[in-house]
């Protein structure tokens, strides 16, 4: 399973996107506002999710700003920073 697919599954389950399936989330759909419709508190949860599930800590605003655009951008950050096992 790719990081994007994993991420979509986690978004649906951990952020209670009940009316959505992972397959319905486009890679380039904005995470916040229009798109998935996540809000600022979901962003807090997303930081926790990324750390808990992928071991990646989002450390600064610049990183968050560029990663928290779409599933695609977030998955790219995770792949770049994910600890190798």
């Amino acid at each position, binding site marked *: 399973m790719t990081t994007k697919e994993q991420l979509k599954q986690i978004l649906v389950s951990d952020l209670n996107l009940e009316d959505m399936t992972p397959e319905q989330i486009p890679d380039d759909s904005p995470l916040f506002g229009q798109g998935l419709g996540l809000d*600022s508190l979901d962003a*807090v949860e997303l930081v926790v999710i990324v750390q808990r599930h992928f071991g990646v800590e989002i450390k600064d605003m610049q990183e*968050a700003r560029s990663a928290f655009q779409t599933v695609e951008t977030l998955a790219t950050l995770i792949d770049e920073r994910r600890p190798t096992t």
Partner: protein
Amino acid sequence: MQHGIFYLLIRLGGTRAAVPLLHAVALYYVLLRPSIRRRTLPYLTRRFPAAPTWRRLLLAYRMIVEFGKVLIDRAAMGMSGLDPHSITLSGRETLLGVLGEGHGVVLLTAHVGCWQTGMAALNFIDVPVHLLMQREEGDIDLHYFEHRGLPCPFRIIDPRGFLGGSIEMLQALKRGEVVSVMGDRDSGSVRNTVAVEFLGGTARFPFSPFKIAAAAGAPVVVLLSHRTGLSSAHLEVVDVIRVPDNLRVDPEEFKPFVEKFVKTLEDYVTAHPFQFFNFYDMWDINAAQEPVRNTAPSLRSMRL
């Protein structure tokens, strides 16, 4: 213009010189500006439910005078600097103790007493203190540190910034720093609030401070203040609330912690009835369906 008159009086004669004019302005508002007087009523009718109409006029007058004194104190402090004896603090050791745990601290305050100038008494904290604070476009209302052109002693997080400043707050806490937020008013949507009993009615309060605390593993320190006289105040660490870090998405999970804070606030407001300055109808749940706006009479709207 009236700002200038008040500032001039404070410069010439100190805070006492400005108080007579404050009483005159408050009387004008109560008698001739019903729109401003009405803003005091949602709280006063809850806090003093048995008060007849004539007494509510007196209560509104007193509320406006007390709020004006807070603004005068703030201006005076800004002009002359902080008198270290003017603000006392209880709970300093508690605050330093939780800070020493290294997970940061969410400092939860409310629009009670001198919530802005009181922060100046926290200058013993040796880590950065962040304030979630929004300045309005064209706001002529000055914070105490702005009167003498001093640099802001706090790091301001603008709730209109990226994702409402939530990531900035979380990262500050993860660095072991202090993030101060108001727990009695939400500038965001109703989605980030829970309905809680407050002063005999149901009002909406934000759960976001507890959510961010849970995500960071930070304790929530409830810090409230009340004025004890002209240019003097007392700050109190009234509670430390610990939120489990396994709480996640459902707002109802955070409700017990919000209720704990609101009960503390209610007790404080009961003890200091004329020092609660939320001048809008917190109990109008339908109105809260729209983003809640700060409709408190500011220096600008009070022309003080």
